[in-house]
Structures are given as C-alpha cells and as structure tokens.
C-alpha cells in the first residue's frame, strides 16, 4: 500500500459506504414493518365490510398521511440499496451498470413522487 494517498496516487476503490447502507436497510425495513402492522390493525379492526369509505378514511387522517409519506421515503432508500446490490452482483460491465443505476433511480424517484401526489390529492 502506498503511503501517499492524495492526488493521482489516491486509492479510489472501496468507497466505504457499506455500513451506512447496511444499517439503513435495517432501519427502513423495521419502520416499514411497523407501518404494515399499523395499517393491518386498522383494516382488521374496522367493524363491518371494508368499502371505499373505510379504506379512504384510513388515509384521510393527517397523521396517517405523514406516516405514509415517511414510509414512502424509507421505501425509496431501502429499494435503492437492494437493487443497487443486485446490479453490483450480476452486471460486470460498468457502462451497462451505470445505465441500470440511473434507470433505477429515475424509476424509484418517479414512483415516489407519484405516490406522494396520490396520497395528498384525494
């Protein structure tokens, strides 16, 4: 290993982002699991059949909208880490992988934006 680690001699491989993303997947996963339980509980403990009124009513409460919004952002990060790992594992050519990374980001950010719009427009 070179003792010079600046300029052109700087070692640029191994970006060192493993721990943050590993922990982020756990934290976002736990948050989404909690959200699933909360949502399921509301659905299960609604007396009578669930029609449009009951279902839309769940998401009409402001606290539920804010929680869902947070979960959407959590999902965005969680999916990005997962999908990026898949590309990293199976796609060796850098050019193809870069296209897939960008495409995945566009896909995810578009989905996030659309779902946030859906959440607040009804």
């Amino acid at each position, binding site marked *: 290993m070179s003792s010079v680690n600046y300029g052109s001699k700087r070692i640029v491989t191994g970006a060192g982002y493993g721990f943050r993303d590993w922990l982020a997947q*756990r934290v976002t*996963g*736990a948050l989404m*699991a909690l959200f*699933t339980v909360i949502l399921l509980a509301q659905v299960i403990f609604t007396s009578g059949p669930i*029609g*449009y009124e009951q*279902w*839309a009513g769940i*998401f009409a409460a402001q606290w539920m909208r804010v929680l869902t919004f947070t979960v959407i952002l959590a999902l965005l990060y969680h*999916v990005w880490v*997962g*999908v990026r790992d*898949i590309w990293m594992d199976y796609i060796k050519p850098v050019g193809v992988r870069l296209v897939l990374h960008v495409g*995945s980001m566009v*896909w*995810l950010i578009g*989905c996030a934006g*659309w*779902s946030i719009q*859906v959440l607040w*427009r*009804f």
Partner: protein
Amino acid sequence: MTDLARKRPEFRNINALTDLPSYRLPPAGWVSILHRISGLLMFALLPFIIWMFDNSITSEFSYAKFTAVFNVGCSFVPGWMMKLLALALIWAYLHHFIAGLRHLYMDVNHAVSKEFGRSSAWVTLTLSLGLTAVLGAKLFGLY
C-alpha cells in the same frame, strides 16, 4: 520464478450451465435467493402497486373501477390473470417481509448458527407460502 509460476492458470466456467442446475440449495439458500427475487419483483411492479393505491383511494367511482379490473379484467388482460398478478405480489411481500424479520432477528440476537439458519429458513418458507395460500384462497373467492 519458474515459467509455470509466472503464467497463472486460468479457470473459465465453461461447465457453468450444466453444473449450476445440479447444485442442491439448502432451505436457507432458497430463502435468501427468494428474498432477492421477491424484492426485484416488487421493484418492477411498483407502478402497478401505486396505480392500485391511486384507484382504490381517489373516489367511489375509481374504487369500483379498481375492483372491477380483478373481476372483469381490463382491455387485454382477463380478471383472473390480474388476480394471479396480485397473488404474485402478495407472495413477494410476505416472503420479503418474513425473511427480512429473520434477518433482523439474526442481527439483534447474533443467532448465526447453522442449525438456527436451517430451522428459521423452514419457518420462513412455511409461513410465507402458507399465508400466501390463505390469502390467495380469499382472493379467488374460495371462502
């Protein structure tokens, strides 16, 4: 350095396609690869999920349209095919969720023995496939 040492041996996986299908994946291996596959499936179907959420929540009229898609189908896809798609999503979510909880449990409790890996993998597969069957029966109107 001899000539042999200087020229390093190269191994090409020319038998990969014949060898790979003959490997026996243990239950924990199945849980792992299915965790990845279910995640990728949900990633690919994300717009469909948002479409379902949108239609289910916007109005009475769109809610009726949304439920109709699973009975009557849309222009090119019959209703039962849409239900199958929904079932695939249900399985993907259940498996990913339960396998994820298994990950979290192993992380928190340092339960990394081979025996726990095997037993927890069996529980994961049974629970996820079982719940998928139960919810699928409900979806297809069996009860």
